[in-house]
Protein backbone atom coordinates (compact mmCIF):
# COMPACT_ATOMS: atom_id res chain seq x y z
CA UNK A 1 0.00 0.00 0.00
CA UNK A 2 1.22 3.44 -0.79
CA UNK A 3 0.51 4.38 2.79
CA UNK A 4 3.53 2.48 3.98
CA UNK A 5 5.96 4.52 1.93
CA UNK A 6 4.62 7.89 2.94
CA UNK A 7 6.79 8.35 6.04
CA UNK A 8 9.88 7.55 4.03
CA UNK A 9 8.93 9.99 1.34
CA UNK A 10 8.50 12.61 4.02
CA UNK A 11 11.84 11.84 5.56
CA UNK A 12 13.77 11.49 2.34
CA UNK A 13 14.76 15.11 1.67
CA UNK A 14 16.11 15.53 5.18
CA UNK A 15 18.06 12.32 4.84
CA UNK A 16 19.62 13.43 1.61
CA UNK A 17 20.82 16.68 3.11
CA UNK A 18 22.07 14.85 6.18
CA UNK A 19 24.07 12.35 4.21
CA UNK A 20 25.57 14.85 1.85
CA UNK A 21 26.51 17.59 4.25
CA UNK A 22 26.40 16.04 7.69
CA UNK A 23 27.67 12.49 7.69
CA UNK A 24 30.79 13.04 5.63
CA UNK A 25 32.38 15.60 8.00
CA UNK A 26 31.54 13.38 10.94
CA UNK A 27 33.28 10.42 9.36
CA UNK A 28 36.24 12.52 8.30
CA UNK A 29 36.79 13.90 11.77
CA UNK A 30 36.47 10.42 13.21
CA UNK A 31 39.17 9.26 10.84
CA UNK A 32 41.42 12.19 11.70
CA UNK A 33 40.97 11.59 15.42
CA UNK A 34 42.75 8.29 15.00
CA UNK A 35 45.81 9.93 13.51
CA UNK A 36 48.45 12.33 14.64
CA UNK A 37 47.89 15.24 12.33
CA UNK A 38 49.80 18.48 12.69
CA UNK A 39 49.39 20.30 9.40
CA UNK A 40 51.82 23.08 10.25
CA UNK A 41 54.58 20.96 11.68
CA UNK A 42 56.76 19.35 9.02
CA UNK A 43 58.53 17.10 11.47
CA UNK A 44 55.60 15.26 13.01
CA UNK A 45 54.46 12.39 10.84
CA UNK A 46 50.88 12.09 9.70
CA UNK A 47 50.08 8.53 10.60
CA UNK A 48 47.69 6.31 12.46
CA UNK A 49 48.06 6.32 16.20
CA UNK A 50 44.68 4.79 16.90
CA UNK A 51 43.33 5.48 20.34
CA UNK A 52 46.33 7.40 21.66
CA UNK A 53 44.51 10.69 21.16
CA UNK A 54 41.52 9.45 23.10
CA UNK A 55 43.67 8.21 25.94
CA UNK A 56 45.37 11.60 26.14
CA UNK A 57 42.00 13.33 26.12
CA UNK A 58 40.83 11.19 28.98
CA UNK A 59 43.77 12.25 31.11
CA UNK A 60 43.85 15.87 30.07
CA UNK A 61 43.18 18.09 33.12
CA UNK A 62 42.45 21.13 30.97
CA UNK A 63 39.80 19.14 29.12
CA UNK A 64 38.22 18.08 32.39
CA UNK A 65 38.24 21.67 33.61
CA UNK A 66 36.70 22.81 30.35
CA UNK A 67 33.93 20.26 30.82
CA UNK A 68 33.27 21.56 34.31
CA UNK A 69 33.09 25.15 33.16
CA UNK A 70 30.79 24.17 30.29
CA UNK A 71 28.49 22.17 32.58
CA UNK A 72 28.25 24.98 35.12
CA UNK A 73 27.66 27.54 32.43
CA UNK A 74 24.95 25.48 30.73
CA UNK A 75 23.19 24.68 33.97
CA UNK A 76 22.92 28.28 35.05
CA UNK A 77 22.13 29.89 31.74
CA UNK A 78 19.46 27.37 30.79
CA UNK A 79 17.91 27.34 34.26
CA UNK A 80 17.74 31.09 34.70
CA UNK A 81 16.58 31.81 31.17
CA UNK A 82 13.91 29.11 31.47
CA UNK A 83 12.39 30.68 34.56
CA UNK A 84 12.59 34.18 33.16
CA UNK A 85 11.31 33.05 29.76
CA UNK A 86 8.35 31.29 31.32
CA UNK A 87 7.56 34.32 33.42
CA UNK A 88 7.69 36.56 30.39
CA UNK A 89 5.56 34.20 28.32
CA UNK A 90 2.88 34.20 31.01
CA UNK A 91 3.17 37.93 31.51
CA UNK A 92 2.77 38.73 27.84
CA UNK A 93 -0.01 36.25 27.22
CA UNK A 94 -2.70 38.69 28.31
CA UNK A 95 -5.16 40.50 26.12
CA UNK A 96 -3.69 43.91 26.71
CA UNK A 97 -3.04 46.60 24.22
CA UNK A 98 0.49 47.05 22.96
CA UNK A 99 1.65 43.61 24.03
CA UNK A 100 2.15 42.50 20.45
CA UNK A 101 4.71 45.27 20.06
CA UNK A 102 6.28 44.32 23.38
CA UNK A 103 6.59 40.72 22.26
CA UNK A 104 8.42 41.72 19.11
CA UNK A 105 10.72 44.08 20.92
CA UNK A 106 11.53 41.40 23.43
CA UNK A 107 12.97 39.24 20.70
CA UNK A 108 15.61 41.81 19.84
CA UNK A 109 18.45 40.27 21.90
CA UNK A 110 18.39 37.09 19.82
CA UNK A 111 18.41 39.10 16.64
CA UNK A 112 21.81 40.60 17.34
CA UNK A 113 24.84 38.77 15.98
CA UNK A 114 26.68 36.94 18.73
CA UNK A 115 29.86 38.72 17.72
CA UNK A 116 28.21 42.10 18.08
CA UNK A 117 26.77 40.99 21.41
CA UNK A 118 30.22 40.03 22.59
CA UNK A 119 31.69 43.37 21.66
CA UNK A 120 28.82 45.42 23.07
CA UNK A 121 28.88 43.57 26.38
CA UNK A 122 32.62 43.85 26.56
CA UNK A 123 32.19 47.57 26.30
CA UNK A 124 29.46 47.53 28.92
CA UNK A 125 31.57 45.43 31.27
CA UNK A 126 34.68 47.58 30.88
CA UNK A 127 35.85 48.43 34.44
CA UNK A 128 36.82 52.02 33.64
CA UNK A 129 34.64 53.12 30.76
CA UNK A 130 31.73 50.72 30.93
CA UNK A 131 28.14 51.63 31.61
CA UNK A 132 27.53 48.93 34.21
CA UNK A 133 30.14 50.27 36.58
CA UNK A 134 28.85 53.73 35.85
CA UNK A 135 25.35 52.69 36.88
CA UNK A 136 26.76 51.06 40.01
CA UNK A 137 28.56 54.26 40.89
CA UNK A 138 25.29 56.13 40.64
CA UNK A 139 23.97 54.05 43.53
CA UNK A 140 27.30 54.27 45.34
CA UNK A 141 28.27 50.66 44.80
CA UNK A 142 31.94 49.91 44.13
CA UNK A 143 33.28 49.18 40.67
CA UNK A 144 33.39 45.53 39.74
CA UNK A 145 36.04 43.81 37.69
CA UNK A 146 33.48 41.76 35.76
CA UNK A 147 35.38 39.99 33.00
CA UNK A 148 38.74 40.65 34.59
CA UNK A 149 38.13 38.73 37.78
CA UNK A 150 38.43 34.96 37.94
CA UNK A 151 35.41 34.72 40.20
CA UNK A 152 33.19 37.15 38.34
CA UNK A 153 34.06 36.27 34.76
CA UNK A 154 31.84 33.21 34.39
CA UNK A 155 28.82 34.80 36.11
CA UNK A 156 29.29 37.79 33.82
CA UNK A 157 29.20 35.52 30.79
CA UNK A 158 26.12 33.79 32.19
CA UNK A 159 24.36 37.13 32.61
CA UNK A 160 25.14 38.06 29.03
CA UNK A 161 23.93 34.72 27.75
CA UNK A 162 20.76 34.87 29.82
CA UNK A 163 20.16 38.30 28.36
CA UNK A 164 20.54 37.06 24.83
CA UNK A 165 18.68 33.78 25.05
CA UNK A 166 15.81 34.33 27.47
CA UNK A 167 13.83 35.66 24.50
CA UNK A 168 14.44 32.30 22.79
CA UNK A 169 12.87 30.50 25.72
CA UNK A 170 10.14 33.09 25.75
CA UNK A 171 9.38 32.53 22.07
CA UNK A 172 9.09 28.76 22.32
CA UNK A 173 7.17 28.82 25.56
CA UNK A 174 4.86 31.53 24.29
CA UNK A 175 4.11 29.55 21.13
CA UNK A 176 3.43 26.59 23.37
CA UNK A 177 1.10 28.59 25.59
CA UNK A 178 -0.82 29.83 22.58
CA UNK A 179 -1.25 26.30 21.32
CA UNK A 180 -2.92 25.08 24.46
CA UNK A 181 -6.66 24.45 24.26
CA UNK A 182 -8.83 26.85 26.21
CA UNK A 183 -11.35 24.48 27.76
CA UNK A 184 -9.27 23.16 30.69
CA UNK A 185 -8.55 26.74 31.72
CA UNK A 186 -12.18 27.73 31.49
CA UNK A 187 -13.22 24.66 33.44
CA UNK A 188 -10.67 25.35 36.14
CA UNK A 189 -11.62 28.98 36.63
CA UNK A 190 -15.31 28.06 36.72
CA UNK A 191 -14.45 25.60 39.43
CA UNK A 192 -12.95 28.50 41.34
CA UNK A 193 -9.26 27.72 41.12
CA UNK A 194 -6.85 30.52 41.92
CA UNK A 195 -4.34 31.75 39.35
CA UNK A 196 -1.52 29.93 41.09
CA UNK A 197 -3.50 26.70 41.25
CA UNK A 198 -4.35 26.93 37.59
CA UNK A 199 -0.71 27.54 36.78
CA UNK A 200 0.52 24.60 38.79
CA UNK A 201 -2.10 22.03 37.89
CA UNK A 202 -3.21 22.99 34.40
CA UNK A 203 -0.65 25.17 32.66
CA UNK A 204 2.55 23.49 33.75
CA UNK A 205 1.58 19.89 33.04
CA UNK A 206 0.20 20.78 29.62
CA UNK A 207 3.26 22.83 28.85
CA UNK A 208 5.63 20.11 29.95
CA UNK A 209 6.64 18.82 26.51
CA UNK A 210 7.36 22.32 25.30
CA UNK A 211 9.36 23.16 28.43
CA UNK A 212 11.44 20.03 28.07
CA UNK A 213 11.95 20.81 24.39
CA UNK A 214 13.14 24.31 25.24
CA UNK A 215 15.57 22.94 27.82
CA UNK A 216 16.91 20.37 25.39
CA UNK A 217 17.43 22.77 22.51
CA UNK A 218 18.90 25.52 24.61
CA UNK A 219 21.29 23.15 26.38
CA UNK A 220 22.55 21.67 23.15
CA UNK A 221 23.32 25.20 22.00
CA UNK A 222 24.77 26.40 25.29
CA UNK A 223 27.41 23.69 25.39
CA UNK A 224 28.64 24.88 22.00
CA UNK A 225 28.83 28.52 22.97
CA UNK A 226 31.84 30.09 21.37
CA UNK A 227 31.56 33.44 19.58
CA UNK A 228 30.81 35.76 22.47
CA UNK A 229 33.14 34.12 24.98
CA UNK A 230 35.93 34.18 22.46
CA UNK A 231 35.46 37.89 21.89
CA UNK A 232 35.02 38.69 25.55
CA UNK A 233 37.60 36.67 27.42
CA UNK A 234 39.35 34.13 25.17
CA UNK A 235 38.69 31.64 27.95
CA UNK A 236 40.37 33.63 30.68
CA UNK A 237 41.18 34.95 33.09
CA UNK A 238 43.15 31.90 34.17
CA UNK A 239 40.85 29.60 32.24
CA UNK A 240 37.89 30.74 34.35
CA UNK A 241 35.70 30.86 31.28
CA UNK A 242 37.45 28.16 29.30
CA UNK A 243 34.47 26.51 27.71
CA UNK A 244 34.86 23.26 25.80
CA UNK A 245 34.53 25.04 22.47
CA UNK A 246 37.16 27.62 23.39
CA UNK A 247 39.60 24.92 24.38
CA UNK A 248 38.85 23.08 21.13
CA UNK A 249 39.63 26.23 19.20
CA UNK A 250 42.94 26.53 20.99
CA UNK A 251 43.86 22.94 20.26
CA UNK A 252 42.91 23.22 16.62
CA UNK A 253 44.04 26.69 15.67
CA UNK A 254 46.74 27.55 18.18
CA UNK A 255 48.49 24.24 18.70
CA UNK A 256 47.36 22.87 15.34
CA UNK A 257 46.92 19.46 16.90
CA UNK A 258 44.08 18.55 14.58
CA UNK A 259 44.07 14.86 15.42
CA UNK A 260 43.80 15.48 19.14
CA UNK A 261 41.20 18.18 18.52
CA UNK A 262 39.07 15.72 16.59
CA UNK A 263 39.37 13.15 19.37
CA UNK A 264 38.37 15.75 21.95
CA UNK A 265 35.40 16.74 19.82
CA UNK A 266 34.22 13.19 19.60
CA UNK A 267 34.68 12.76 23.31
CA UNK A 268 32.55 15.82 24.02
CA UNK A 269 30.02 14.77 21.43
CA UNK A 270 29.61 11.32 22.94
CA UNK A 271 29.23 12.78 26.42
CA UNK A 272 26.61 15.18 25.17
CA UNK A 273 24.79 12.42 23.31
CA UNK A 274 24.74 10.31 26.45
CA UNK A 275 23.35 13.18 28.49
CA UNK A 276 20.65 13.84 25.91
CA UNK A 277 19.67 10.17 25.88
CA UNK A 278 19.45 10.06 29.64
CA UNK A 279 17.41 13.25 29.61
CA UNK A 280 14.95 11.86 27.10
CA UNK A 281 14.57 8.55 28.89
CA UNK A 282 14.37 10.01 32.36
CA UNK A 283 11.89 12.77 31.63
CA UNK A 284 9.78 10.65 29.33
CA UNK A 285 10.02 13.54 26.95
CA UNK A 286 8.58 11.59 24.07
CA UNK A 287 6.18 9.58 26.13
CA UNK A 288 3.17 11.17 24.48
CA UNK A 289 4.07 9.65 21.17
CA UNK A 290 4.31 6.26 22.80
CA UNK A 291 0.93 6.75 24.42
CA UNK A 292 -0.68 7.68 21.15
CA UNK A 293 0.90 4.67 19.56
CA UNK A 294 -0.68 2.40 22.13
CA UNK A 295 -4.16 3.78 21.49
Amino acid at each position, binding site marked *: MRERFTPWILLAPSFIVLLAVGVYPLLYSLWVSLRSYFPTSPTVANKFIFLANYRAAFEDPVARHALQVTALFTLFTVGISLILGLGLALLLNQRLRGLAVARTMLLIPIMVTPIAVGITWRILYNPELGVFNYLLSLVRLPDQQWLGSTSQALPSIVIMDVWQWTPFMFLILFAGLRSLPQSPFEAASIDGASAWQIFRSVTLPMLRPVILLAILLRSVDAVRMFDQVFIMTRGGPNLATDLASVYLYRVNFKFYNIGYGAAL*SWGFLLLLLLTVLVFIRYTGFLRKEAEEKAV
Partner: protein
Amino acid sequence: MSADQAPTAAVAVPRWGVRPRYAIRTAAHAARTALLYAAVVSALAIFLFPYYWMVTAAFKSTGDVTAYPPVWVFTPTLENFRELIQDLGALSALKNSLIIVGISTCLAMIFGSMAAYALARFDIKGKEMIALEILMVRMLPPIVTVIPLFLLAQALGILDTYWILIAIYTLSGLPLVVWVMRVFVQEIPRSIEEAALIDGCSRMQVLFRVTLPLALPGIAATMVLTFIFAWNEYLFASLLTSSDAKTLPVVAAVTLKPRAISWGVASAAGVMMSLPVVVLVLLAQRYLVRGLTFGVIKR
Protein backbone atom coordinates in the same frame (compact mmCIF):
# COMPACT_ATOMS: atom_id res chain seq x y z
CA MET B 1 -9.55 34.45 33.12
CA SER B 2 -12.67 36.47 33.50
CA ALA B 3 -10.90 39.23 35.37
CA ASP B 4 -9.17 40.19 32.16
CA GLN B 5 -12.30 41.34 30.47
CA ALA B 6 -14.22 44.44 31.41
CA PRO B 7 -16.49 44.01 34.42
CA THR B 8 -19.77 42.62 33.24
CA ALA B 9 -22.69 44.95 32.84
CA ALA B 10 -24.89 42.64 34.87
CA VAL B 11 -23.14 43.80 38.03
CA ALA B 12 -24.07 47.43 37.45
CA VAL B 13 -27.52 46.89 38.95
CA PRO B 14 -28.05 49.71 41.45
CA ARG B 15 -28.30 47.80 44.70
CA TRP B 16 -26.45 48.89 47.76
CA GLY B 17 -24.59 45.68 48.34
CA VAL B 18 -23.42 45.55 44.76
CA ARG B 19 -22.12 48.97 43.82
CA PRO B 20 -19.13 49.11 46.21
CA ARG B 21 -18.08 45.68 44.89
CA TYR B 22 -18.29 47.00 41.34
CA ALA B 23 -16.12 49.97 42.28
CA ILE B 24 -13.57 47.81 44.05
CA ARG B 25 -13.53 45.38 41.17
CA THR B 26 -12.70 48.05 38.63
CA ALA B 27 -10.11 49.59 40.94
CA ALA B 28 -8.47 46.23 41.51
CA HIS B 29 -8.62 45.57 37.81
CA ALA B 30 -6.96 48.89 37.06
CA ALA B 31 -4.26 48.32 39.65
CA ARG B 32 -3.54 44.88 38.27
CA THR B 33 -3.30 46.23 34.75
CA ALA B 34 -0.97 48.98 35.88
CA LEU B 35 1.25 46.45 37.61
CA LEU B 36 1.32 44.28 34.53
CA TYR B 37 2.33 47.16 32.33
CA ALA B 38 5.01 48.16 34.83
CA ALA B 39 6.42 44.66 34.77
CA VAL B 40 6.38 44.58 30.99
CA VAL B 41 8.11 47.94 30.73
CA SER B 42 10.80 46.90 33.21
CA ALA B 43 11.43 43.67 31.33
CA LEU B 44 11.66 45.58 28.08
CA ALA B 45 14.05 48.11 29.60
CA ILE B 46 16.39 45.36 30.73
CA PHE B 47 16.31 43.46 27.49
CA LEU B 48 16.53 46.46 25.24
CA PHE B 49 19.22 48.46 26.99
CA PRO B 50 22.29 46.76 25.46
CA TYR B 51 20.66 46.97 22.05
CA TYR B 52 19.87 50.62 22.60
CA TRP B 53 23.50 51.11 23.57
CA MET B 54 24.68 49.49 20.37
CA VAL B 55 22.33 51.52 18.21
CA THR B 56 23.41 54.80 19.75
CA ALA B 57 27.05 53.80 19.45
CA ALA B 58 26.51 53.26 15.74
CA PHE B 59 25.67 56.93 15.38
CA LYS B 60 28.40 58.26 17.64
CA SER B 61 31.71 59.70 16.57
CA THR B 62 34.86 58.05 17.86
CA GLY B 63 35.22 60.54 20.65
CA ASP B 64 31.67 60.07 21.87
CA VAL B 65 31.84 56.30 21.78
CA THR B 66 34.80 56.08 24.15
CA ALA B 67 33.73 58.91 26.42
CA TYR B 68 33.38 58.44 30.16
CA PRO B 69 31.07 59.16 31.90
CA PRO B 70 28.94 57.71 29.11
CA VAL B 71 27.43 60.23 26.78
CA TRP B 72 23.65 60.14 26.61
CA VAL B 73 23.05 63.15 24.42
CA PHE B 74 25.25 63.63 21.39
CA THR B 75 25.24 64.78 17.79
CA PRO B 76 24.62 61.77 15.57
CA THR B 77 26.85 61.04 12.62
CA LEU B 78 26.47 58.71 9.67
CA GLU B 79 30.21 58.31 9.29
CA ASN B 80 30.19 54.75 10.63
CA PHE B 81 27.60 53.61 8.14
CA ARG B 82 29.38 55.33 5.30
CA GLU B 83 32.55 53.48 6.15
CA LEU B 84 30.60 50.26 6.42
CA ILE B 85 28.99 50.56 3.01
CA GLN B 86 31.74 52.18 1.02
CA ASP B 87 34.89 50.70 2.48
CA LEU B 88 33.63 47.32 3.55
CA GLY B 89 31.05 46.46 0.88
CA ALA B 90 28.25 45.87 3.31
CA LEU B 91 25.43 46.15 0.79
CA SER B 92 26.49 43.27 -1.44
CA ALA B 93 27.08 41.21 1.67
CA LEU B 94 23.57 42.07 2.73
CA LYS B 95 22.21 40.82 -0.59
CA ASN B 96 24.21 37.60 -0.28
CA SER B 97 23.00 37.00 3.23
CA LEU B 98 19.38 37.57 2.30
CA ILE B 99 19.49 35.13 -0.59
CA ILE B 100 21.48 32.42 1.18
CA VAL B 101 19.65 32.51 4.47
CA GLY B 102 16.24 32.97 2.83
CA ILE B 103 16.58 29.91 0.65
CA SER B 104 18.12 27.69 3.30
CA THR B 105 15.46 28.65 5.84
CA CYS B 106 12.69 27.74 3.40
CA LEU B 107 14.34 24.43 2.57
CA ALA B 108 14.94 23.60 6.21
CA MET B 109 11.34 24.44 7.09
CA ILE B 110 9.89 22.32 4.28
CA PHE B 111 12.14 19.29 4.69
CA GLY B 112 12.12 19.51 8.44
CA SER B 113 8.36 19.82 8.83
CA MET B 114 7.82 16.86 6.57
CA ALA B 115 10.27 14.81 8.58
CA ALA B 116 8.79 15.99 11.86
CA TYR B 117 5.33 14.97 10.74
CA ALA B 118 6.63 11.56 9.74
CA LEU B 119 8.32 11.11 13.10
CA ALA B 120 5.34 12.28 15.09
CA ARG B 121 2.59 10.35 13.33
CA PHE B 122 4.09 7.19 11.98
CA ASP B 123 5.44 4.16 13.72
CA ILE B 124 8.80 3.77 12.02
CA LYS B 125 11.44 1.29 12.99
CA GLY B 126 14.41 3.05 14.49
CA LYS B 127 12.48 6.29 14.85
CA GLU B 128 14.38 7.46 17.92
CA MET B 129 17.68 6.70 16.26
CA ILE B 130 16.74 8.85 13.31
CA ALA B 131 15.60 11.70 15.49
CA LEU B 132 18.74 11.56 17.56
CA GLU B 133 20.95 11.45 14.49
CA ILE B 134 19.28 14.59 13.30
CA LEU B 135 19.87 16.24 16.66
CA MET B 136 23.47 15.09 16.68
CA VAL B 137 24.14 17.34 13.74
CA ARG B 138 23.49 20.28 15.99
CA MET B 139 25.74 18.94 18.72
CA LEU B 140 28.99 18.77 16.84
CA PRO B 141 31.12 21.90 17.25
CA PRO B 142 31.35 23.65 13.89
CA ILE B 143 35.13 23.88 14.17
CA VAL B 144 35.36 20.17 13.58
CA THR B 145 33.25 20.04 10.46
CA VAL B 146 34.75 23.07 8.79
CA ILE B 147 37.90 21.42 7.46
CA PRO B 148 36.30 18.44 5.73
CA LEU B 149 33.55 20.64 4.33
CA PHE B 150 36.15 23.01 2.95
CA LEU B 151 37.88 20.12 1.19
CA LEU B 152 34.58 18.82 -0.15
CA ALA B 153 33.51 22.21 -1.44
CA GLN B 154 36.86 22.74 -3.05
CA ALA B 155 36.61 19.40 -4.80
CA LEU B 156 33.14 20.18 -6.05
CA GLY B 157 34.12 23.67 -7.11
CA ILE B 158 31.42 25.35 -5.08
CA LEU B 159 33.63 27.33 -2.74
CA ASP B 160 32.65 30.96 -2.53
CA THR B 161 29.28 30.32 -4.12
CA TYR B 162 25.79 30.43 -2.70
CA TRP B 163 25.36 26.66 -2.88
CA ILE B 164 27.79 25.54 -0.26
CA LEU B 165 26.41 27.85 2.39
CA ILE B 166 22.82 27.09 1.45
CA ALA B 167 23.56 23.39 1.86
CA ILE B 168 25.27 23.88 5.21
CA TYR B 169 22.64 26.22 6.63
CA THR B 170 19.82 23.95 5.52
CA LEU B 171 21.53 21.13 7.32
CA SER B 172 22.08 23.26 10.42
CA GLY B 173 18.44 24.31 10.48
CA LEU B 174 17.02 20.81 10.14
CA PRO B 175 17.51 19.67 13.75
CA LEU B 176 15.74 22.69 15.16
CA VAL B 177 12.84 22.44 12.73
CA VAL B 178 12.43 18.70 13.12
CA TRP B 179 12.51 18.68 16.90
CA VAL B 180 10.32 21.71 17.51
CA MET B 181 7.74 20.83 14.87
CA ARG B 182 7.64 17.28 16.13
CA VAL B 183 6.51 18.44 19.56
CA PHE B 184 3.97 20.82 18.10
CA VAL B 185 2.52 18.21 15.76
CA GLN B 186 2.17 15.86 18.70
CA GLU B 187 0.05 18.45 20.45
CA ILE B 188 -2.52 18.28 17.68
CA PRO B 189 -4.95 15.44 18.31
CA ARG B 190 -4.98 12.69 15.76
CA SER B 191 -8.77 12.70 15.66
CA ILE B 192 -8.84 15.83 13.56
CA GLU B 193 -6.51 14.31 11.02
CA GLU B 194 -8.41 11.07 11.05
CA ALA B 195 -11.61 12.93 10.30
CA ALA B 196 -9.94 14.53 7.30
CA LEU B 197 -8.59 11.19 6.16
CA ILE B 198 -12.04 9.65 6.36
CA ASP B 199 -13.33 12.54 4.30
CA GLY B 200 -10.97 11.44 1.58
CA CYS B 201 -7.77 13.46 1.93
CA SER B 202 -4.44 11.86 1.23
CA ARG B 203 -1.77 11.99 3.92
CA MET B 204 0.02 14.80 2.15
CA GLN B 205 -3.16 16.82 1.93
CA VAL B 206 -3.82 16.26 5.59
CA LEU B 207 -0.35 17.52 6.37
CA PHE B 208 -0.64 20.70 4.38
CA ARG B 209 -4.32 21.54 4.78
CA VAL B 210 -5.06 20.43 8.32
CA THR B 211 -1.99 19.92 10.47
CA LEU B 212 0.22 22.78 9.43
CA PRO B 213 -2.39 25.53 9.85
CA LEU B 214 -3.02 24.26 13.36
CA ALA B 215 0.68 24.26 14.08
CA LEU B 216 1.06 27.86 12.99
CA PRO B 217 2.57 29.24 16.22
CA GLY B 218 5.18 26.51 16.09
CA ILE B 219 5.91 27.22 12.46
CA ALA B 220 6.25 30.93 13.03
CA ALA B 221 8.55 30.45 15.99
CA THR B 222 10.66 27.88 14.21
CA MET B 223 11.04 29.92 11.07
CA VAL B 224 12.14 32.97 12.99
CA LEU B 225 14.69 31.00 14.97
CA THR B 226 16.05 29.11 11.99
CA PHE B 227 16.48 32.33 10.09
CA ILE B 228 18.23 34.00 13.01
CA PHE B 229 20.71 31.19 13.54
CA ALA B 230 21.66 31.05 9.88
CA TRP B 231 21.73 34.82 9.58
CA ASN B 232 24.25 35.18 12.38
CA GLU B 233 26.42 32.27 11.40
CA TYR B 234 30.04 33.29 11.14
CA LEU B 235 32.54 30.44 11.14
CA PHE B 236 31.46 28.64 7.99
CA ALA B 237 30.76 31.86 6.17
CA SER B 238 34.19 33.26 6.87
CA LEU B 239 36.09 30.12 5.92
CA LEU B 240 34.07 29.02 2.91
CA THR B 241 33.54 32.31 1.10
CA SER B 242 35.80 35.14 0.12
CA SER B 243 34.52 37.80 -2.23
CA ASP B 244 31.57 36.58 -4.24
CA ALA B 245 29.39 35.06 -1.58
CA LYS B 246 30.55 36.94 1.47
CA THR B 247 27.81 37.31 4.04
CA LEU B 248 27.09 40.07 6.50
CA PRO B 249 28.61 38.48 9.65
CA VAL B 250 31.93 38.27 7.86
CA VAL B 251 31.85 41.97 7.13
CA ALA B 252 30.80 42.63 10.71
CA ALA B 253 33.75 40.64 12.01
CA VAL B 254 36.16 42.64 9.89
CA THR B 255 35.15 45.69 11.89
CA LEU B 256 36.29 43.90 15.01
CA LYS B 257 39.90 43.27 14.05
CA PRO B 258 41.73 43.45 17.40
CA ARG B 259 44.18 46.12 16.44
CA ALA B 260 41.70 48.58 15.06
CA ILE B 261 38.40 48.03 16.83
CA SER B 262 36.23 50.89 15.85
CA TRP B 263 33.32 50.43 18.19
CA GLY B 264 31.28 52.87 16.18
CA VAL B 265 31.63 50.95 12.92
CA ALA B 266 31.24 47.61 14.69
CA SER B 267 28.02 48.84 16.25
CA ALA B 268 26.86 50.10 12.87
CA ALA B 269 27.48 46.63 11.46
CA GLY B 270 25.51 45.15 14.32
CA VAL B 271 22.62 47.49 13.63
CA MET B 272 22.61 46.68 9.94
CA MET B 273 22.59 43.00 10.71
CA SER B 274 19.67 43.21 13.04
CA LEU B 275 17.32 45.16 10.77
CA PRO B 276 16.16 42.39 8.38
CA VAL B 277 15.60 40.13 11.33
CA VAL B 278 13.42 42.74 13.01
CA VAL B 279 11.35 43.02 9.85
CA LEU B 280 10.95 39.26 9.67
CA VAL B 281 9.86 39.00 13.25
CA LEU B 282 7.32 41.77 12.80
CA LEU B 283 5.83 39.85 9.89
CA ALA B 284 5.83 36.53 11.72
CA GLN B 285 4.28 38.09 14.81
CA ARG B 286 0.79 37.87 13.33
CA TYR B 287 1.06 34.16 12.69
CA LEU B 288 2.32 33.55 16.16
CA VAL B 289 -0.89 35.04 17.47
CA ARG B 290 -3.24 33.82 14.76
CA GLY B 291 -2.64 30.29 15.88
CA LEU B 292 -4.82 31.11 18.83
CA THR B 293 -8.00 31.21 16.79
CA PHE B 294 -7.11 28.01 15.00
CA GLY B 295 -5.81 26.32 18.06
CA VAL B 296 -8.95 26.28 20.15
CA ILE B 297 -9.74 22.62 20.08
CA LYS B 298 -12.56 21.27 22.17
CA ARG B 299 -11.27 18.18 23.87
